[in-house]
């Protein structure tokens, strides 16, 4: 008996892509703008998000999902902002995927939300492969990480919409070479929007909040488009 070959032609990540597309539809229906944050561990995502939530709450209804392998500590910390926050503990999985987001959104958030922030697991590698249905993907890197980070992790920088340089209050102490980082970002992803902030001092947050508002408004403007793809 001879074996036969059956042609298939199917994207292996199809399941996640389909789940992400469903999330995208859901976000559109709920008029919810969704931004995800990725970075290496320790770049300052949580501190950044903490300040973002506090500032945003003044004018919008905001919420956050945060992914970690273990502990609820980030979620607890982010709740100080007063916004609803849900923790996703992945166990051993090194990234969030669309199905995890789907599950986390069951009966949550408790009320209507304008902006949802999703803090991914600290990892510059794996999250690049998993579409979460977000409108905007933000990659954070701190002045302490070295200016060649974008060259070392091209895929994640290629899939990002915005790069945020964090901890700028430490620039002098680490002899941060701003021009080198901007050059490296530009060589990996020309035209990438880059912001610089300090979650500690609040520097740069005006520009960040304005960017979010602008992108959220643009996303709303697409709500009635026939083909809803926003990414």
């Amino acid at each position, binding site marked *: *008996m001879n*074996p*036969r*070959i*059956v*042609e*298939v*032609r*199917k*994207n*292996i*990540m*199809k*399941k*996640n892509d389909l789940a992400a597309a469903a999330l995208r539809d859901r976000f559109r229906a709920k008029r919810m703008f969704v931004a995800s944050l990725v970075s290496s561990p320790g770049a300052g995502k949580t501190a950044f998000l903490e300040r973002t939530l506090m500032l945003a709450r003044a004018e919008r209804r905001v919420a956050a999902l945060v992914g970690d392998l273990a502990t609820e500590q980030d979620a607890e910390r982010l709740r100080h902002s007063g916004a609803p926050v849900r923790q996703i503990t992945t166990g051993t*999985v*090194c*990234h969030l*995927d669309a199905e995890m987001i789907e599950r986390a959104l069951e009966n949550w958030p408790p009320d209507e939300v304008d902006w949802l922030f999703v803090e991914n697991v600290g990892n510059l*590698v*794996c999250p*690049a*492969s998993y579409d979460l249905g977000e409108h905007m993907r933000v990659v954070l890197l701190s002045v302490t990480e070295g200016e060649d980070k974008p060259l070392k992790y091209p*895929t994640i920088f290629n899939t990002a919409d915005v790069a945020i340089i964090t901890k700028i209050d430490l620039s002098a102490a680490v002899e941060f070479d701003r021009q080198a980082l901007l050059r490296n970002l530009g060589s990996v992803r020309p035209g990438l929007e880059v912001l610089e902030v300090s979650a500690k001092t609040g520097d740069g947050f005006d520009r960040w909040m304005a960017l979010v508002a602008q992108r959220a408004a643009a996303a709303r403007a697409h709500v009635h488009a026939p083909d809803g793809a926003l990414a």
Partner: protein
Amino acid sequence: MHELSVAMSLVDAICEELPQLGAVTVRSVRIRVGALSGVSMEALMFAFDVAADGTPIAGARLIVEAASGRELDLTAVEVWDEPAHRGSP
């Protein structure tokens, strides 16, 4: 690394095809992995055996074709048709 997650997605993707193929044993599976896909071929091959274990495709061989872009595609499944049921011995 997350090749185990990807391998599990691959196993799911193959198992989804099985109902249309009738009674078969899967001998091998062909995939294309792009250099920019963020997936290591070696790690995926290892993870595939783990992910396939205990599923209808356990024991199938994974054949990986390298590609240049971002693709991560299942391209073909090689199967043996199981002999028709012969009735009670």
